[in-house]
């Protein structure tokens, strides 16, 4: 005898289409009518894009190390950051700058980090947020641990983490889903699916229809949204964050977007990715559609756009100067390598520090 004992589905949400039109027949989220909020989020998306371009340029001219661009992900990242409260906890991967800017991380922090200076990770954002996380998907379990802590503290706080389409293959992410299920953790697991993991396309991570359905493994509510649609992405985040905060447990959101840039500045995507794919992705990118929508609604125009771009350029320039000032005028010392190894410096590390100071590196570094 066969009987169906469990059934599941993955729904897809899109509210603002690539042409900046609200999708017909939808139950449109209130945010779509909150023009003030949309303008403010649009401004942050734009700032992030201007920043991003500058950071790439700095790397190209040798003023910054390898940098991971966020080009094309701005809506997803702004949605994530803006759905959270300050006391919530964000465990990023390495390119969610817009989410972090919303939370208070400074552009100069980002530059310090990719500029090879540990102070970047001592960022100005919520001091309890996790630092950038290079070992793929490990941040998911840190977020699960934070969520566990809040649950044990009985604080209404939520942990939010982001993983890529590539990272969604890793045990850490999958174990985090399981943990979230086991303890009904106040956790939101966001898959920012930008279709590529360096050179490996989404289709090679697995053959499942969606990545969202990984959440079904833990019985978590699991949806897919157009991650270039700020309204849909934010709506999904709001819902998931509220569920987590109210003790209804964790969710998985797959945000569909596209990595318009190289993987990092150390990568050359032309080696493996057809230009046609990139070109057509540009038609769906998040700023364009939001700008069109705001313009259609009469809340944005070319003049405002120009002003905004100028303002962003200025703010970015100031951040670059802060960064350059820090690394030139107040560089990390040799001591700084030995500090922070332990709360109380052991004897042998003290000795190594004194020795190291006799041998400063020569020349450029």
């Amino acid at each position, binding site marked *: 005898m066969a009987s169906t004992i469990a059934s599941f589905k993955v729904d897809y949400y899109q509210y603002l289409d690539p042409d900046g039109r609200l999708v017909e027949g939808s139950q449109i989220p209130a945010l779509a009518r909150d023009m003030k909020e949309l303008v403010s989020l649009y401004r942050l998306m734009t700032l992030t894009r201007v920043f991003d371009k500058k950071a790439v340029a700095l790397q190209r001219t040798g003023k910054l190390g390898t940098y991971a661009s966020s080009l094309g992900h701005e809506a997803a990242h702004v949605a994530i950051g803006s759905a959270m409260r300050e006391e919530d906890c964000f*465990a990023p991967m390495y390119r969610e700058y817009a989410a972090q800017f919303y939370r208070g991380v400074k552009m100069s922090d980002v530059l310090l980090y990719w500029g090879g200076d540990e102070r970047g990770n001592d960022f100005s954002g919520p001091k*309890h947020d*996790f630092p950038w996380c290079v*070992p793929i998907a490990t941040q998911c379990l840190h977020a699960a*641990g934070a969520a566990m802590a809040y649950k044990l503290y009985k604080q209404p706080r939520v942990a939010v983490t982001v993983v890529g389409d590539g990272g969604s293959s890793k045990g850490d992410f999958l174990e*985090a889903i*399981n943990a979230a299920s086991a303890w009904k953790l106040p956790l939101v697991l966001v898959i920012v699916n930008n279709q590529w993991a360096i050179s490996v396309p989404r289709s090679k991570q697995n053959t499942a229809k969606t990545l969202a359905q990984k959440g079904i493994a833990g019985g978590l509510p699991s949806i897919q949204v157009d991650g270039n649609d700020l309204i849909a992405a934010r709506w999904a985040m709001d819902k998931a964050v509220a569920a987590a905060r109210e003790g209804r447990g964790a969710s998985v959101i797959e945000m569909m977007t596209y990595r318009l840039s190289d993987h990092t500045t150390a990568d050359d995507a032309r080696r493996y990715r057809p230009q046609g794919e990139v070109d057509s992705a540009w038609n769906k990118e998040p700023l364009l559609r939001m700008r069109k929508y705001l313009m259609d609604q009469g809340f944005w125009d070319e003049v405002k756009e120009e002003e905004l771009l100028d303002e962003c350029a200025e703010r970015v320039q100031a951040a670059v100067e802060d960064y350059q000032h820090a690394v030139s005028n107040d560089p990390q010392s040799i001591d700084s390598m030995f500090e922070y*190894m332990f709360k109380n410096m052991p004897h042998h590390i003290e000795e190594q520090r004194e020795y190291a100071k006799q041998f400063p590196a020569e020349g450029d570094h």
Partner: protein
Amino acid sequence: MAEITLVEAVTMALAHEMEQDPTVVVFGEDVGVNGGVFRATAGLQKQFGDERVIDTPLAEVMIAGMCVGMAAQGMKPVAEAQFEGFMYPMVDHLVNHAARLRHRTRGRLTCPMVVRAPWGGGIHAPEHHSDSNEATWAHFPGMRTVIPSSPSRAYGLLLAAIRDPDPVVFLEPKRIYRWQKETVEDSGEELPLDVCFVLRDGTDITLVTWGAMVKETMEAAQALAEQGISAEVIDVATVAPIDMDTIIESVEKTGRCVIVHEAPKHCGVGAEIAASLADNAIWHLKAPIKRVTGYDTVMPLYRNEMNYMPSCKRIVHAAEQVLRFE
């Protein structure tokens, strides 16, 4: 004040610190109702509830990763790995995160977590249940590796490990979990994590060891004493970072050193001690530094296990070799 075993001392320290500090939680497989497969957490869930003593799903990466997360948010998780052989999935989170969090965030976030694990061979356990993997942890900067060898040291060192503001791997020699009872007062007094313990004073030779091998090494010292040889025995206890000062001082006195550990010889912690002596005490050495260790083989299944483990005989033999030099 009762006489307790090493494993009971572990339980006592856990209970003490959970009582004192509400942020301490015990986290692991079977630590709750079952009280751990070695009973190290016996009774704790009853006493502190299931929000302080938490049975986890079977996933060591998760255990380590969540502990990093909890610790970064102000808790003091004490994870239990069921056996040291199941700690390997934890390497990534311990090395890439726990040990680096303070450094990489310039102290903004810290990671005061402990991973405890029953460790080492000699109890005729199944495959993968008898490794001595302290060298794996000892090499990585940013964390401590601590191994007690008696009930009172288990109590005092575990208290210190939990209170330590940085991550600690705490390896419990399962072979001597119930070997000796000792009167241990539940005083809340910790022992330092940056000193070796001199267990026996001597003048002719220094025997350096840790964990369950303290047993055989003390027996060897006794056997040597019966031959009129005075052996100093040092329990390293915290194998990373090592208090070399105590060891060097001893070897400066005796001029001879034998290092004993269960782990394979090649790149074991014994190598660090010998290397450090070869740098810092070479003019005091009257003989080669010998290491009596497990072999560079897989820890065999139990019928061959005792052929693998360093024995009192092997230690005495090495000491005699070393004592042959004048």
